[in-house]
């Protein structure tokens, strides 16, 4: 191993990647993209649609329609709160003996002036059931507005029907407000909400996935390029395959670190100067320094682990099609925490999740995802890192064997038996 030759490779990889426009673009776009991801849904919610939805109400319960109408007029007075409900929905009573089915059919017609049908009836035990037939039930705003208010209407109507005084009614309408407070080690507490925790965790596991896959693919394309342009033979006349591969991995990892450093610096600057009250929505302690550091550790180790896989893949493939087939399992394994994020959030300490977060294939993204949710026991973090480090060495050995034979091969992709032979050689 000659350090100066290794450094020459590291330097070339670093320079070639950083000078590319795509590096600059990705570095700038990612924070913007994730910022947008957090802001856009609430923006969409605020956008007012001008359209008034005409909804025909088949009220078989006999009392809900009046409730709806009076609630709507009440809502109009309280403009601020229930503006949507008041201004965007128009309730219509169907003529006597109208046929529900024919109205539902009308809803399906694009040009129909009716946007939906609301069917309300009481079951024998007094339970009120309602069904909404709409052309576009994925209009979350409309459906959730209906859902939110029907219960209040039912309550209001029932209270009025039973002649309960307004005072008592108001008491009854009071709700318990539940504040969620996250308790961390040492009794530190912080207020949080499901949405915030969800977005943060999603952000962390998604970013880690993108970094490992992105830089892994960069490495793989580099290997393929050297193979197809035949530079590799020229390089191997001055270098050992292990030196070449190590140089490439280190060079690309340096690019990743630089990118991460830029993001962290941006974050620090934002917190210090706090433009437009940026930090008011992300109160102190939302992202902790140890999380930033562990993210770095899992990115670097995860990248090293998968680098061997990607390098071996690049050395045996010569077309993008071949690569795509082999990529799928890796993508699935790395994105796994994002796919089961709901389950992890519910119980980040479930036995199988803990076990998987110790296994190197999953541990980079899965352990980091758990760390983002909760205070993971320190022994688990250390064990995960240690096992991953061993995994890195093992994969480097395995991938290196395939790589050194693969890069000089031409023609057909080797079979799995040939690969085993290379590994044994």
């Amino acid at each position, binding site marked *: 191993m*000659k350090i100066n*030759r290794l450094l020459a490779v590291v*330097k070339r990889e670093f320079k070639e990647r950083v000078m590319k426009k795509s590096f600059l673009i990705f570095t700038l776009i990612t924070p913007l993209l994730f910022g947008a991801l957090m802001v856009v849904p609430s923006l969409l919610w605020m956008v007012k649609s001008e359209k008034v939805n005409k909804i025909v109400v088949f009220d078989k319960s006999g009392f809900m329609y009046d409730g709806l109408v009076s609630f709507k007029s009440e809502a109009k007075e309280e403009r601020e709160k229930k503006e949507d409900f008041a201004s965007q929905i128009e309730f219509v009573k169907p003529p006597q003996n109208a046929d529900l089915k024919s109205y539902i059919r009308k809803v399906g017609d694009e040009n129909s002036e009716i946007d939906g049908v609301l069917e309300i009836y009481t079951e024998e035990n007094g339970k009120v059931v309602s069904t909404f037939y709409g052309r576009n039930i994925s209009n979350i705003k409309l459906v959730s507005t209906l859902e939110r208010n029907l219960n209040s209407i039912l309550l209001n109507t029932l209270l009025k029907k039973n002649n309960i005084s307004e005072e008592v009614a108001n008491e009854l309408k009071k709700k318990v407000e539940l504040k969620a407070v996250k308790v961390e080690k040492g009794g530190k507490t912080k207020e949080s909400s499901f949405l915030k925790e969800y977005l943060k965790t999603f952000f962390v596991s998604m970013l880690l996935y993108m970094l490992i896959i992105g830089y892994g693919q960069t490495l793989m394309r580099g290997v393929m390029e050297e193979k197809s*342009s*035949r*530079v590799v*033979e*020229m390089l*191997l*006349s001055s270098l050992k395959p292990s030196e070449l591969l190590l140089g490439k991995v280190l060079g690309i990892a340096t690019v990743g670190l630089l990118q991460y450093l830029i993001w962290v610096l941006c974050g620090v600057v934002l917190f210090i100067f706090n433009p437009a009250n940026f930090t008011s929505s992300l109160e102190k302690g939302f992202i902790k320094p140890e999380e930033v550091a562990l993210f770095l550790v899992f990115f670097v180790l995860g990248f090293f682990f998968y680098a061997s896989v990607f390098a071996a893949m690049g050395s045996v493939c010569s077309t993008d099609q071949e690569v795509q087939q082999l990529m799928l399992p890796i993508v699935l394994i790395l994105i796994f925490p994002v796919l089961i994020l709901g389950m992890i959030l519910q119980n980040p300490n479930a036995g199988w999740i803990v076990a998987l977060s110790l296994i190197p294939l999953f541990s980079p993204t899965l352990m980091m995802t758990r760390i983002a949710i909760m205070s993971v026991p320190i022994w688990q973090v250390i064990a995960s890192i240690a096992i991953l480090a061993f995994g890195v060495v093992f994969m480097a050995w395995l991938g290196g064997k395939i790589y050194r034979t693969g890069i000089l091969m031409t023609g057909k992709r080797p079979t799995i038996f040939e690969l085993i032979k290379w590994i044994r050689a």
Partner: protein
Amino acid sequence: MNVLNLREVCKSFGEKKAVDNVALEVDGNQIFGLLGPNGAGKTTLIRMIMGIYLPDSGSISIFQKKLSELSDGELGYLPEERGLYPKMKCADLLAFFLELKGFSFRKAKTKAVEGLEKVGLKEYADKKVEELSKGMQQKVQLLAALNHYPKLAILDEPFSGLDPVNVELFKEIIKEAQNKGTTVVLSSHQMELVEQLCHKIALINKGRIVLNGDVGEIRKEYGSKEVHIEFGNAPPQINYDEYAETAKIEASSVTLSLKKNVSHKALIGKLWEKGAEIVKFEVGTSSLHDIFVKVVKEGEGKNEN
């Protein structure tokens, strides 16, 4: 000085023996030619010399040392499959290769630009490799092998795909490197070029060395023994059978196929003694190409038997 020494080198790919028990010695400061038909094992042999493949058995030493013991920059290499990073600037690429050879970055950069200037590519220093024509890329590739004046340069098919002008330029560059002390081993199947350039050659066929030695001596041994002599008078009456295996005597000329140990000098001396007026003495030359074909065919004949 012995520069390159191969002993009983073997390499197989699966069932196929690519290089079979090859022994070869190359002395210092010369141009050595490795000849052979396609698929003879030249590239495999060269890749083993460069340490890209490991031999199955046998040993390879360069300057009496193992490859791993050589210091930086002692070797230069031009692979048969040309390989450059298409997206890199020419000067950066050459500098990178020089850095791999152990030069400092600054020195490598200066040398790279100097080299480009030498082959008339100065204004392409900051152009990407992919923007260059094929011929220019070949020049850059040759520079990568010779620019640092290595002690030993291995050039695999340096002339393939070149136009006649560039062939001349490449010959000049290779000769210049040799003059500066580089020992050059080149492989080729273009015999004329090898004949013009090389001092010694080895002929390789089916993974084995079938002929090895000085170009002149090989020609003497394997070349044609045919002599055609024209006379101003009638051919003198001597016992031609003493000199030739076959003799065709005509009115004013003879065509002889000389015996192995007969020198031209002895024959001419004898003819003069007998008062011959020699107008023309023509020695049938045979190029390496003929020898090559002859030896390869003979070898195949032997194998079949």
